[in-house]
């Protein structure tokens, strides 16, 4: 600790300062610091090291392994970090800021720009974690983050705390975009002839069923507040939208419109639903309030209109899949049905999903559709303003049902490659594809909003 300096001022200077006070006030008001920076080509990934946490109690090691692995995987799959591999990292486990030697981490072979470290202790049935994030290149003022967590000691809570700490690091270094380590993926699992709504963590852990309706359910969509799941289910009256409460753990009532009602979609404020209903045998897009009231028909085109998705940035536009010109194509329009604009120029395009920043559409597209035509169904994203698209998956079976993560850096999708359909995830530039489900038919994934 540095000594505190105190100096006494002579009376003449005190008077001088009194006269200067108004001027100083003005100067203080505009005394923000200046930063000069810039770019000429892209931005490299952030070199980050995640040190193994120091076990500071005898019971900690069992939970520490879970914690360390989860933290490393969360940071590694964030899409913005170039992680220092465990074999390159110094073989130390600093438990506190006093124990870390930043020069050791900043030097080769680790070359870390930032280091996450801390300690984990399990005492009295409680799990206590202290975590820090330090700037390895700035030894004078290294601390960026310091966090403390305390939960009941269990493997699930060790994973939960690792997710939370990873999300804090990603939010801080990723420029304010929250991490997705605590998000979930909802999907349809075919088990025993039925199709039910299931839930898993974003990394494929903790897979478990939500509904037990004994029928066929499709297209689950989580509400923005993470309280409810809207999905289409086959009943006596045909297809209808049903609502599952994650808070109550059961299906709750929802006034679904008459007729086969499919593919619900939430607006990002949670106030509106869009869906397709075929009262007259021709599916059209409708919107309603979140409780099913105030139903309005939006499209009146001849030919099927299905799979609506809102622009989550503005909630004033809807993208959907229409067969008005033959094969299904992606269109966008205002939420009142005006300003229809065709986005794809041919082939077979389905399952649009609007990116969280409102700039992109992800969809499944078979550009060379037809008997004997080459090419398969792949995931594409399109820049809506310029209608320029890019292909994310290549030659890996049939892809469908893309869904954006809330940070806009990931896409979860369904892939059929030989066997049954399974759920995969990838970065939104098509790299780092990982399989989330391993067995059984799993389809129609939907990423939660938070």
């Amino acid at each position, binding site marked *: 600790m540095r000594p505190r300096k105190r100096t006494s001022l002579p009376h003449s200077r005190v008077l001088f300062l009194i006269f200067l006070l108004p001027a100083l006030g003005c100067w203080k008001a505009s005394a923000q610091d200046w930063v000069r*920076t*810039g770019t000429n080509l892209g931005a490299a990934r952030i070199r980050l090291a995640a040190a193994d946490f120091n076990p500071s109690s005898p019971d900690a090691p069992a939970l520490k392994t879970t914690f360390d692995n989860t933290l490393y995987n969360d940071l590694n799959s964030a899409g913005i970090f170039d992680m220092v591999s465990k074999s390159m990292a110094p073989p130390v486990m600093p438990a506190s800021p006093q124990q870390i030697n930043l020069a050791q981490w900043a030097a080769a072979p680790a070359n870390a720009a930032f280091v996450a470290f801390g300690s984990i202790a399990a005492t009295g049935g409680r799990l206590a974690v202290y975590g820090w994030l330090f700037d390895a290149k700035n030894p004078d003022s290294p*601390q960026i983050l310091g966090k403390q967590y305390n939960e009941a000691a269990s493997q699930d809570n060790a994973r939960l705390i690792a997710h939370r700490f990873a999300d804090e690091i990603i939010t801080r270094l990723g*420029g304010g975009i929250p991490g997705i380590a605590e998000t979930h993926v909802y999907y349809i699992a075919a088990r025993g002839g039925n199709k039910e709504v299931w839930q898993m963590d974003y990394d494929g852990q903790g897979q478990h069923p939500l509904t037990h309706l004994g029928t066929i359910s499709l297209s689950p969509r989580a509400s923005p507040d993470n309280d409810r799941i809207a999905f289409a289910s086959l009943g006596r009256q045909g297809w209808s939208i049903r609502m599952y409460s994650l808070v109550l753990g059961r299906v709750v009532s929802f006034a679904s419109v008459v007729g086969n009602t499919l593919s619900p979609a939430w607006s990002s404020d949670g106030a509106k639903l869009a869906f397709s209903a075929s009262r007259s045998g021709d599916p059209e897009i409708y919107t309603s309030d979140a409780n099913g009231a105030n139903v309005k028909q939006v499209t009146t085109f001849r030919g099927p209109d299905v799979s609506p998705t809102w622009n989550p940035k503005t909630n004033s536009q809807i993208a959907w899949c229409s067969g008005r010109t033959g094969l299904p194509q992606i269109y966008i329009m205002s939420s009142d049905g005006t300003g229809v604009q065709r*986005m794809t120029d041919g082939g077979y395009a389905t399952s649009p999903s609007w990116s969280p920043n409102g700039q992109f559409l992800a969809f499944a597209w078979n550009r060379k559709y037809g008997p004997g035509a080459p090419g398969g169904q792949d995931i594409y994203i399109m820049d809506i303003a310029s*209608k320029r698209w890019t292909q994310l998956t290549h030659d890996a079976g049939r892809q469908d049902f893309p869904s954006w993560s809330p940070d806009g850096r990931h896409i979860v999708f369904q892939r059929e490659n030989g066997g049954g359909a399974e759920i995969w995830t990838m970065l939104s530039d098509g790299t780092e594809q990982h399989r989330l489900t391993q067995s059984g038919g799993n389809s129609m994934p939907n990423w939660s909003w938070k």
Partner: protein
Amino acid sequence: MAGFSSHDEILDQPDGIGSPFAKSTVMHVLVFAALIGYGYVHNLLHGSEWGSNSFQQGAIQATLVSTAALPLPQDHPPTDNVLATETPSVAPALEEQKQEPLPLPDAVPIPEKQPPPKPEAKPLPKAPPQHQPPPKPQNKANYGEAAPANVPRSTASNSAANSPIAQTGGDFGSRFGWYVDVIKRKVAQDWYLQEVDPSTPAGATVFIQFTVGRDGSPGSISLATPSSSPSLNSSCMHAVQRVDTFGPLPSGYNESSLNVLYHCTYPGAR
């Protein structure tokens, strides 16, 4: 014989193949026309259901030059230069033409130019002695407002023993370099090079000025020093405007906002 005569009559009768043939032809034509007509009418009624692959203009077929709008870092920006291929050409290389050896540089002697003779320097007359006035004695003290020193001027003790001492009054860039990196990275990710006119010279630089609020949102975006390319100026402005937030300002920074001077340097058409 009667049987033979009747047989002869039958043989003598003219062949009736013309009429059935004509009828058959007419029937075929009618059936064919009916098929074509049915197909036309069916297509009118059901032609635009799922199943036909009609092509309509309306979208642009061009791949993204860059996925810069994704909130992901770009390590290796893609190139659409068709000449930049790693595959060697299958055409045989041209034989090098034999060139006659150039004559040696000293084959023809070049007469050197003789410099004119320098005039002999005359000694300068001695300068008269100049008397400098003695320096005035400085009796006034140099006090008043000085520029703030770029070092931490005050320190405060922190009750938490494990955390380092908070410093105030220092330079933002040296204390929170990671936040400067965040600003640089986020604007760089949202800067679309395809918005810049390709005729812009490489190295052209525009300076943008903006503030970052405590919540991390950019504001007061303006051009500080424009470049010669209006498209470069606007693309850099748009890059900052696309950023929703840089994340909250560091808690150790006590001011209400941060001023940023950001430059975008065009790397040249790729």
